[in-house]
């Protein structure tokens, strides 16, 4: 059993224990009345955690590396949000896939020992490997961390699909901001999950997306976003098709590569990785998507959209 699995098991046991103590009948979501920053358990947790970093009046807890996962804080009740069925984390908070995304979240949070604001680019070698779905799900589980402001940014200016997954307006978006046609505040959309914000790709309207990506405005936008959000997840175009990732990755603090199992050729993935590393981009890890393991895949019972 891996360390992540052990951590997940411990987290589950801890959550169950706390819920038994607090008498939460739902088993999740209403923990705010049981474990708040001011409650005895919350104070105890705050002491255990690293010193807080104050950002815009909110408190974000950096997770110390030797403390297992950082999701032991109670999850606030999540309002209903009609998203695409593939955004599993928004639909089902307890399924295995959501837990797998939470494991990714834990890994990313533990990696950030200094508490700096992170901006992670999610990319892949070729299209349809699961970048957008991973970004959408990861952003949702990131937003479960209390007081952590998370932004899901769609930087695929050509074929951005994150707005379709979240079923939010795709414009105004990043392209409009980079073109100077809309302010950033207007482009960033709030979601039913309070900690989670969304910046759609927008519409280029005849403008060259490569120029927009390479503009100085993009760097300014990233600086502003990193100041405002604790964790930013950037959905990017695939490596093999466009060179945008080279620019976008340089603006981010790290790159996570999605590899679709049993689909993407290994040499393609290796070439993409070498290309990224050759451009001095920090590839912090990869996520294996579409693992076909018997009994582990997720299927929906109620969805109305393909």
């Amino acid at each position: 059993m891996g360390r992540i699995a052990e951590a997940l098991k411990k987290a589950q046991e801890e959550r169950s224990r706390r819920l038994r103590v607090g008498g939460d009948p739902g088993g999740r979501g209403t923990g705010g009345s049981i474990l708040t920053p001011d409650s005895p358990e919350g104070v105890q947790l705050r002491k255990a955690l690293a010193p807080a970093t104050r950002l815009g009046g909110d408190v974000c807890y950096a997770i110390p590396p030797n403390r297992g996962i950082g999701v032991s804080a109670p999850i606030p009740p999540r309002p209903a949000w009609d998203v695409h069925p593939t955004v599993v984390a928004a639909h089902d908070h307890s399924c295995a896939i959501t837990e797998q995304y939470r494991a990714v979240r834990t890994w990313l949070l533990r990696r950030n020992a200094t508490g700096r604001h992170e901006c992670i680019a999610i990319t892949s070698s070729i299209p349809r490997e699961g970048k957008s779905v991973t970004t959408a799900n990861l952003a949702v589980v990131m937003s479960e961390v209390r007081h952590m402001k998370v932004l899901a940014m769609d930087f695929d200016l050509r074929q951005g699909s994150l707005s379709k997954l979240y079923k939010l307006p795709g414009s105004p978006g990043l392209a409009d901001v980079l073109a100077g046609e809309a302010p950033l505040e207007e482009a960033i959309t709030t979601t039913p999950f309070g900690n989670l914000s969304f910046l759609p790709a927008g519409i280029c309207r005849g403008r060259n997306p490569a120029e927009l990506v390479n503009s100085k405005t993009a760097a300014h936008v990233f600086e502003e976003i990193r100041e405002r959000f604790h964790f930013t997840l950037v959905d990017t175009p695939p490596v093999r098709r466009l060179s945008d990732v080279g620019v976008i990755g340089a603006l981010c603090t790290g790159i996570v590569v999605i590899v679709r199992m049993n689909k993407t050729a290994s040499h393609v993935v290796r070439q993409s990785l070498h290309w990224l590393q050759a451009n001095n981009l920090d590839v912090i890890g990869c996520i294996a998507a579409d693992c076909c393991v018997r009994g582990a895949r997720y299927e929906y019972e109620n969805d109305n959209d393909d």
Partner: protein
Amino acid sequence: MHHHQIDEFSVTDFRHTVHEVWRVVCVRRWLLLFPLCIVSSAAFLCSLWVPREYAATTIIKREHDPVFANMMKKGWIEPYEDIRRSLGREIANPAFIQEVLESHDLPEGLARFEDGAMRPESDALRQQWVKAVAGGLSTNVIEASAHRDIIEIALTMRDPAHMERILSAVRDQYIVFAQRKTVDVLKSVESFLRSEAAGCRQALAKLQRRRVEYELKYPGISPGAPDPRAVERSALEIERVNVERKLDDLAMRREALQTQLSAMTEGDGKAGDDDSPVMIEEPNPRHAELGQEVERLEREIAEGKTIRSMTDEHPEIKRNRALLAARREELSRMPRSIMISAKVAGDRTIRLEKIESLKNELADTGTALAGMNGRLAALRENLDGIGRDRALAIEHRPAYLKLTNEIAQLAEQLVSWEQNIAPIEQVLYLEGRDRSVHFATVQAASVKSKPISPDLRLVMMICLGVGLGAAVLCVLLAELIDRSYRTVKQLSTSLGVPVIESIDEIVTAAAHRRQLWRKLVVMPALAALLVVATILAGAMAYISLDHSADFEIARSSPRQFLQVAGGQS
């Protein structure tokens, strides 16, 4: 739990290998099934164009005359096997086939010139037939014994239409040919045996002449025959011994005479001076008396044992023997002659007469001695001649014995030749009356309805095997071409960056429905279609091989076939 990360198998683990094979089969089951069905179907259909070969057989029985059968039992097994084999070869001889086809005017409807000669294309067609028939003809001896043979004649051809007729013609011709061949072989064997016997006789006569020459030249050379000079030699030997004894006696007599004569002569000179007694040697009368007594006793003993049937224990025999022993002992001690005084003998006159008679007697004794010596020399010369002849005979005896052996062998060989000639003559005599070999058709020529080639099971196995091979090849190629990552371990090992997590497949309901539709309906339907196509193709191949006549009808006129099938049902 991270079920999807349980992939830490060793490649060398047999279970892992089996698991991998099973995984590949499960994952690529359609890729396995579709090429199998498609290629097998194609192979089945292709098998319809494989040329069919039909077989026609007829069985004949060859019964032998008892004399012929008996002859074959006695050392004729191998030669007759040769005859059988040669007949088997001859039946497929193109000249023989050509003869058969010409006699039956096959193939039918050959174009000819006005004078009856065949056109070149007809001749070429007939040559094709000859080649096809010669290649397809074979004989199989079902039963072979001295009394009868049961032979199956088989013909294999692609066109079954004329096979019965050709095979019948070949069989009839084969019977004639076999009879002719048997007679030819017998005649040639008879002439061979006769020539061998004649040669053998000549050689035997020559050797016998040489043996007679040996026997004449070297008497006594034959160890089995009595020596013709043995009697002569024995007689000469006996005579030689007698002559030698007589010579000794004569020499002693002459010496005694000379001694007596000298004594008499000296006594005559001293007679006036003194009266010394003169000693004269006289025969001892007691010695002669004892000799006669011994002879008488021996005669009485012999007569008692033979005429009067007395045994050795008989008292008279015992007494005579004791007396004989005593007399013999006395005889051995008794001197032959005694010396008496001349005074006692007579006076001087008497002495002179005695001297004169002694001189005469001495002269006679010398003459007799010389004659005896001459006879002894002649005897010795004769005996030496006989010895030389005997040594020569012994020296040439090995050559003589070798010659004798050769004569015996040749005589034995001649006997065997003559023994073999007799039954052949008898068989040929019977053959002249059509009685030695009798042929009968046990089974008439008939064509089997099913083709003998290609083999049904072999075709089925090859078609399915080719399909299976193609399927396995496709799967292997797909596995080789597929270079995607399959396990997290591969991913982490290959990329060198940490694998943060592996996310399971997310399937929406629509995708799930599509997958189910594809998995449960489309692919099974396609597979069923292909399986049905394969079964149909296989059934066609089966029918074409197992019920070729029906298949030919169905192929040439499907409507007629359906009508026939409907009528049967």
